[in-house]
């Protein structure tokens, strides 16, 4: 009975999550347009439906009805494969990310009977209030990383098969960027894993419920992870793969209609996934001390609402940052990743490992983070402010007429 119900509940959850994510993506586009409009002192879309709330519907219909142009010079197999890869990997990555109340896996016990009983209890709990598509996956967090890394294939295949220099440059930039930023991203997440002692995201949440959020004890890892997540999503200031001003549209220049729509879908789904990951790894998932807790449907809904609020906060942060910081130059991008974030992230992991090894209080990691930031600041002051000299031609003769 319980096992069958668990399977059905999995199907229901998959349906709800896919529907929810696709709708959310449509509305994120509207939100993005609103926020960009407000920041530019405009009003934004307000014509379709009340307050423009039906705009996503109109956009979706437009996407489907647009002419689907396939240029003659493309490599057709990979050209058609690329948007599918981009969208599918983004949607797959959500499979293990909790989006509401979760139950941590039972910890290993010496007594086999007690352990089996704990597992039975766990299965019962998961069957009723599950907020993960695939609960209890021990490599959960590695799975998300592996699949989101595959997203770069969508971009590279798209750029390569388009047979167009701008798409190619965009795709190459993207591969360099994603590979570079995955290292600090993974290292920052590793420091959380070291603390929780598990790759399972539900266990990580459970650990934070018990010991406080990771952001308070590891703010540096949080910042590194956040920056890495921005870069993984190709969001400004890291949107070099599709830099409109220099690359026309980057890797999706040659795509039209719903094939472009799938790239778009992948990008926004990625935003949702990474925002959820940041919330789960560093902000305690559904946990809000003093508010969440207890059992029953009310507590379940409250946990869901708390996690959705955190998700919304990070999505808004993505959008605010997008219209705040200009795009990095490519050398600055690489400088940030290799000369700054990777050393900091490595040092951070070592610091966390030392704290864990000697069994010190978790707050020692806060002091360690502060120390690392201080070292970085000293290093920047000594080394980073080297002025770059550039030749400028003196003005010769008079100004041209008409200026």
């Amino acid at each position, binding site marked *: 009975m319980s096992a069958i119900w668990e399977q059905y509940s999995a199907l229901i959850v998959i349906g709800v999550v896919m529907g929810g994510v696709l709708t959310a993506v449509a509305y994120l586009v509207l939100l993005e347009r609103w926020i960009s409009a407000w920041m530019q*002192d405009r009003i934004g879309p307000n014509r379709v439906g009340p307050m423009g709330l039906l705009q996503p519907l109109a956009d979706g219909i437009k996407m489907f009805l647009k002419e689907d142009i396939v240029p003659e010079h493309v490599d057709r197999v990979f050209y058609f494969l690329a948007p599918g890869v981009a969208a599918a990997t983004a949607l797959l990555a959500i499979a293990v990310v909790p989006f509401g109340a979760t139950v941590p896996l039972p910890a290993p016990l010496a007594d086999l009977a007690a352990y089996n009983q704990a597992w039975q209890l766990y299965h019962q709990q998961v069957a009723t209030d599950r907020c993960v598509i695939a609960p209890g996956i021990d490599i959960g967090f590695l799975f998300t990383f592996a699949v989101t890394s595959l997203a770069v294939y969508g971009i590279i295949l798209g750029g390569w098969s388009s047979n167009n220099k701008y798409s190619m440059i965009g795709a190459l930039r993207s591969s360099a960027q994603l590979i570079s930023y995955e290292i600090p991203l993974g290292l920052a997440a590793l420091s959380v894993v070291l603390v929780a002692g598990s790759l399972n995201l539900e266990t990580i949440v459970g650990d934070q419920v018990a010991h406080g959020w990771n952001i308070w004890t590891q703010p540096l890892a949080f910042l590194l992870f956040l920056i890495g997540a921005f870069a993984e999503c190709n969001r400004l200031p890291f949107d070099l793969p599709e830099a409109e001003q220099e690359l026309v549209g980057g890797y999706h220049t040659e795509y039209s209609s719903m094939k472009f729509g799938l790239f778009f879908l992948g990008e926004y789904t990625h935003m949702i996934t990474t925002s959820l990951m940041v919330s789960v790894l560093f902000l305690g998932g559904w946990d809000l001390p003093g508010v969440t807790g207890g059992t029953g449907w009310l507590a379940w809904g409250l946990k869901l609402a708390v996690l959705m609020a955190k998700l919304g906060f990070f999505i808004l942060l993505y959008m*605010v940052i997008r219209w705040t910081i200009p795009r990095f130059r490519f050398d600055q991008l690489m400088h940030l990743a290799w000369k700054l974030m990777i050393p900091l992230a490595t040092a951070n992991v070592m610091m966390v490992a030392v704290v864990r090894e000697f069994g010190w209080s978790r707050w020692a990691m806060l002091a360690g983070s502060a120390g690392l930031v201080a070292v970085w600041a000293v290093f920047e002051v000594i080394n980073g402010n080297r002025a770059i000299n550039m030749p400028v031609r*003196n003005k010769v003769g008079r100004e041209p007429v008409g200026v």
Partner: protein
Amino acid sequence: MPIASKDVKWVSTPKMGLGDLLYFPAVFSGMATTLKHVIQPKVTEQYPEQEPNLPANYRGVHRLNRDEAGRVKCVACYMCSTACPAHCIDIVAAPSPWTDREKYPETFVIDELRCIYCGMCEEACPVDAIELTSLYDLTGLSREQMLFDKEKLLSVFDMTTKESPKKDPIRTRAGKLGVASEALKNS
């Protein structure tokens, strides 16, 4: 010609403070700016519902003015069509049915599609009969519809004076009148 070394000067990038070197303080100050704009009043004009506030000397659709008796003021002197750089004014003159002038326009057609809205006709007119109003939203379904004849141009006068006096162009009220109008007024 190669650039001589005396024409080249060297500049260096500005020195950054600690806030800029550590990225985050600079990012936060940037976010303060952008978030301030979110709550600032918007500049968008909601066009069909909200009419633009045009300056009083905006040059839009023409009108033919009427005199006090409600007759067309034009004396068919062809000054406007001569001045017109786009050759969009077509006048056919006829002997005036009234005693105070010799001629009047039997037909007076302006091709609004051809017009470049330069206002030269208005300047040329000796009796202030032709004027540009601040009506800007002129549309038509065909080229023929955009040929405004005398009746249409007179109706524009009625529209801008009686129906919505706000649209009455400032030139009729302020400033000097044309030579002939002044003479007529003083006589």
